[in-house]
């Protein structure tokens, strides 16, 4: 057996249930033992020496503490590995328990592994504390190491720097950084049957990681970082775009403010100066106007007086003319009236005749009215009595004795009583009454003023007796008078009838007389009128002339009045205006916002020069001052509006220039920005394109990593394709691209290349980078994928598939290696893949033979076993088969024996198998 550099033997002493185990590692081994006898435990012990890092060791479901206790039950439990290295020769790498807490320690010494070196004289194993001394006695210089130092030295990360410490760089890797993944793969080679497709992918990625970006790409962060400024700029641009109208309003207001400032600055000195002269001007002017007004009013008054006089005169003349005219008309009327009468005498004669006729008639009437006094007196007395009777009767009209008697007596009875109480009773002759004077006196003695009748009591006071006994002579005389009266009355009656006619005649004669008297008067009047006709005519003419003059004079007054009134009104208006101006200026003077900030220092603020006329006169001061104050207030309002607009614009997103100076400057910059929007859009586009280029640089790396990996896999496939795997004609590993992801990356990378190639303007004329739908879709895919996986890596861009094809059959792709073929074929594939990965990592200049382990090897037929052995050997590994029955294809056949409850593998129990052909050689 030729000694190849590499693992030679594995020895366990008092560890993993083995009292002693020696296992050859320099060639293929068939490790024979029933299931669960400790085969895997034996091989797994190698992890302590080869993997070292507890986190990378794999003991299946066993907990670490239990594992440690299992392998290092006490401080004389050893795991030893004899290796042969090209530069260092034979070395023993060891791991010994420390007892306490089942910790363990690493050591190395030069020289071959002799189990007896670890025995004490009593046959027991040397304990860890005494190991160095014990081995020194045997001329073995033991060097102890911490696990990290041991790892570094084992994997060649550094050379041994301590004195005579041996160099035990077993695993010389192309790149020292591959140590971790080498350890992982190596761990898996100890249980190759459990190698999974996912592990193959991960290991390959780690093996070829130098061609890939160092870390996963956080595309979202990259995009956001690259587009941060773009997004900010775009947000600002959009804010300006959306608020163009508001910005235009801002600009207008700013322009207005600048103009007004200039105007106020220009006008203020003039106003101040004029204000100083105002009071004096006002007083002077006011006096003048007032004086003028009163003079005008006086003139007006005089004019009005004169006008009144003229009017009176006109009235008088009118009356006079009318009177004269009337006289003329009267004269004409009278002349016509007396057209048939030639002289006054005719009227006088008529009057005389009428008077006589009237007098005659008057006498007649008077005669008809003559009567004697006595008769008249009696008529008067009789008249008075009759009046009294009637008055009394009226007073008792509704409540008198007659009515009371009528109510209680029969009409016949009432009539009897009425007749009894009549004044005719006293004239009853004697044959018509009976008198009982005694009874009557007695009766009349009673009652005084009362008269008691049966059933009737009468009060007699205030009643007058209606009968008085007169003598016969008196009665005769009275009767004669009455007869005469009757005659006279008859005459009077007759005369009375004639009286009416007589009176009528008298009246007519009176009328006639009066008519003639009137005619006489009128005749005299006519005479007077005729006498004064010429004078009257002349007077009339004069009056008319005077009237005409008066009218003429009066007609001019209207205009003069109007003129004077207008002047007075104007003057009054001027006074009022002046007073109004005074009040106005006084009010304005006491409310001067330009006397305090911010208007006080307006000249220092930016403003446009005021080019229009700004001179102020005393006459225009009020108006100018009012406008000036309005301008000042407008400036303040504009300050407020502009500030408000700025707040609105800022809340709408225009915040870039917020802290770049004063608000004034901010306004200017915003307005300038608004005018540069189209250029800003172009600039934004350029920024976006530049950002795309920036953000895709990492994607380009990622894509490059994918291409590189695919190339590497292609090379790897050549490596694993060298071996015939069972009946497979085809076996290769194929990285199947995740098309969606790769498309997204290529989309962005291509866009970046297009952008940077200078063709961009034509391509993007239809829309901007920021609005490209496919680009955005690609971005979304990458961002969401990166978020889901905390970054994008090359490994995310493909799925590893195993392409397997039997002879004569089409190759098929399998995601899972275990389902790709039969058990034996899969095992081969796993072995080849795993060993190829290790081979890939090793420095081929310093090949060191290692081991790999395959459990359940009986599942493989002999051809496959041989093939596996050869394949492993080709890759620099000795294959250890584990099975309940020995396999003749291996070089060594090593049974595990049990003794006293412990497993035991002795060197003496090794069986070396050699084919007859080899033996013949």
């Amino acid at each position, binding site marked *: 057996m030729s000694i190849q550099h590499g693992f030679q033997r594995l020895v366990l002493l008092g560890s993993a249930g083995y009292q002693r185990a020696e296992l050859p590692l320099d060639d293929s081994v068939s490790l024979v033992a029933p299931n669960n006898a400790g085969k895997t435990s034996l091989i797994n012990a190698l992890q302590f020496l080869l993997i070292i890092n507890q986190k990378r060791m794999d003991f299946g479901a066993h907990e670490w503490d239990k594992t440690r206790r299992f392998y290092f039950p006490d401080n004389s439990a050893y795991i030893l590995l004899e290796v042969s290295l090209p530069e260092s020769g034979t070395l023993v790498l060891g791991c010994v328990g420390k007892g306490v807490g089942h910790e363990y320690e690493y050591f190395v010494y030069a020289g071959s592994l002799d189990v007896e070196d670890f025995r004490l004289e009593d046959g027991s194993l040397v304990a860890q504390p005494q190991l160095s001394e014990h081995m020194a006695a045997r001329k073995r210089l033991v060097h102890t190491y911490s696990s990290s130092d041991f790892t570094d030295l084992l994997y060649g990360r550094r050379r041994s720097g301590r004195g005579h410490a041996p160099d035990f760089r077993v695993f010389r890797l192309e790149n020292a950084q591959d140590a971790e993944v080498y350890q992982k793969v190596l761990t898996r080679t100890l249980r190759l049957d459990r190698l999974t497709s996912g592990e193959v992918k991960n290991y390959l990625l780690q093996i070829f990681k130098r061609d890939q970006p160092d870390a996963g790409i956080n595309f979202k962060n990259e995009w956001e970082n690259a587009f941060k400024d773009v997004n900010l700029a775009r947000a600002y641009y959009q804010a300006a775009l959306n608020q163009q109208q508001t910005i235009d309003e801002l600009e207008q207001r700013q322009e207005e403010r600048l103009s007004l400032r200039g105007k106020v600055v220009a006008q203020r000195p003039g106003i101040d100066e004029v204000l100083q002269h105002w009071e004096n001007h006002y007083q002077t002017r006011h006096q003048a106007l007032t004086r003028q007004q009163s003079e005008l009013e006086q003139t007006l008054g005089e004019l009005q007086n004169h006008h009144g006089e003229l009017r009176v005169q006109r009235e008088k003349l009118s009356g006079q003319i009318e009177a004269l005219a009337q006289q003329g008309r009267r004269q004409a009327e009278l002349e016509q009236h007396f057209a048939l009468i030639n002289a006054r005498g005719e009227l006088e004669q008529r009057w005389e005749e009428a008077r006589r006729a009237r007098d005659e008639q008057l006498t007649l009437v008077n005669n008809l009215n003559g009567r004697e006094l006595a008769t008249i007196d009696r008529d008067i007395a009789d008249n008075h009595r009759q009046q009294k009777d009637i008055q009394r009767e009226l007073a008792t009209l509704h409540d008198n004795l007659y009515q009371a008697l009528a109510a209680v007596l029969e009409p016949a009875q009432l009539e009897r009583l009425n007749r009894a109480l009549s004044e005719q009773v006293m004239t009853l002759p004697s044959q018509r009454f009976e008198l009982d004077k005694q009874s009557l006196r007695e009766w009349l003695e009673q009652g005084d003023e009362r008269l008691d009748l049966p059933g009737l009591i009468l009060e007699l006071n205030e009643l007058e007796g209606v009968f008085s006994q007169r003598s016969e002579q008196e009665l005769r005389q009275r009767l004669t008078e009455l007869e005469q009266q009757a005659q006279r009355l008859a005459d009077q009656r007759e005369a009375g009838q004639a009286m009416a006619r007589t009176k009528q005649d008298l009246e007519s004669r009176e009328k006639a007389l009066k008519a003639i008297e009137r005619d006489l008067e009128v005749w005299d009047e006519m005479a007077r009128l005729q006498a004064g006709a010429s004078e009257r005519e002349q007077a009339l003419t004069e009056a008319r002339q005077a009237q005409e003059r008066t009218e003429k004079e009066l007609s001019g007054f209207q205009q003069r009045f109007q003129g004077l009134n207008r002047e007075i009104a104007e003057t009054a208006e001027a006074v009022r205006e002046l007073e109004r101006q005074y009040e106005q200026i006084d009010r304005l003077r006491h409310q001067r916002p330009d006397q305090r900030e911010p208007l006080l220092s307006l000249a220092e603020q930016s403003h446009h020069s005021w080019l229009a006329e700004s001179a102020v006169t005393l006459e225009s001061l009020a108006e100018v001052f009012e406008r000036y104050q309005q301008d000042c207030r407008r400036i303040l309002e504009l300050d407020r509006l502009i500030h408000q607009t700025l707040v609105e614009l800022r809340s709408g997103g225009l915040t870039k220039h917020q802290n770049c100076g004063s608000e004034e400057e901010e306004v200017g910059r915003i307005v300038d920005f608004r005018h540069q929007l189209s250029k800003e859009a172009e600039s934004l586009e350029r920024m976006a394109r530049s950002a795309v280029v920036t953000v895709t640089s990492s994607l380009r790396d990622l894509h490059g990593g994918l291409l590189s990996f695919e190339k590497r896999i292609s090379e790897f496939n050549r490596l694993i394709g060298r071996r015939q795997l069972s009946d497979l004609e085809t076996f290769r590993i194929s990285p*199947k691209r*995740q*098309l*969606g*992801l790769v*498309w997204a990356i290529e989309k962005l990378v291509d866009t970046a290349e297009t952008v940077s190639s200078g063709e961009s303007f034509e391509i993007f004329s239809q829309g901007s980078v920021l609005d490209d*739908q*496919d680009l955005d*879709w690609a971005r979304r*895919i990458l961002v*969401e*994928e990166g*978020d*889901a*996986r905390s970054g994008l890596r090359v490994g995310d861009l493909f*799925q590893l*598939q195993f392409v397997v094809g039997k002879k004569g059959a089409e190759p098929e792709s399998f*995601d899972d290696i275990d389902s790709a073929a039969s058990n034996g074929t899969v095992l081969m594939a796993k072995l080849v893949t795993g060993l190829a990965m290790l081979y890939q990592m090793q420095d081929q200049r310093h090949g060191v033979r290692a081991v790999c382990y395959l459990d359940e090897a009986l599942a493989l037929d002999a051809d496959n076993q041989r093939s596996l052995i050869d394949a492993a050997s080709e890759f620099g590994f000795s294959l250890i088969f584990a099975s309940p029955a020995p396999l003749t294809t291996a070089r060594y056949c090593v049974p595990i024996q049990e003794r006293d409850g412990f497993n035991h593998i002795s060197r003496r129990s090794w069986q070396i198998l050699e084919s007859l052909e080899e033996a013949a050689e």
Partner: protein
Amino acid sequence: MSEPVDLEKLPRLSELFRFFSAGKHLNRVSEPVLWAELEAQQSAYEALFSALGYELRVDARGFAWFQTQESSSAVNRVTRHLALLFMTLFDYQADAGLPLVQFEQWVIDHRLLDTVHEHHQEVLEAEELDRHALTGIMERAVNYGFAMNDNGAWRLLPAVHRYVEHFEELAAQVDSSEDWLLDTTQTQEPTDAGEGTES
């Protein structure tokens, strides 16, 4: 014996189960978080769902679904309509020179549907599918995970590969039947019996 499943490592188990049991296809492109979770614990999810009687199929092209043997008549109708729509769509796009393998990059908007309907009106209306129905079918496609909405249009998801493969199978069957026809015609060359001369 299979390894025990640690439910603590399957935080999105119920979410995934609801997703799949609703008949939806999970697509990496549209649900990257769920997909990453499924990918990381694929074997565990497969084992767990299998224990529950569900067959989880995971396609390395980035989609997964519950494979069912039976389906209701309504689902069959939907499937049929989807197949018809996709077939007409693919047919149109192929005629337009677009590579079918890049169907995930197509933007399916209303204008495209109008054109597809116009070109395949007879076939579609034989199935009583008017233009409005096509929009409904696309929405159903979204529900089942064959498409997703994107700014008022749709994009097809990798799950559509299932229909593409089906179409390819059908096309292959047609090709093979044509080949058979060719073979049979070739083998049936008229024998030279000396008879049968033309009169």
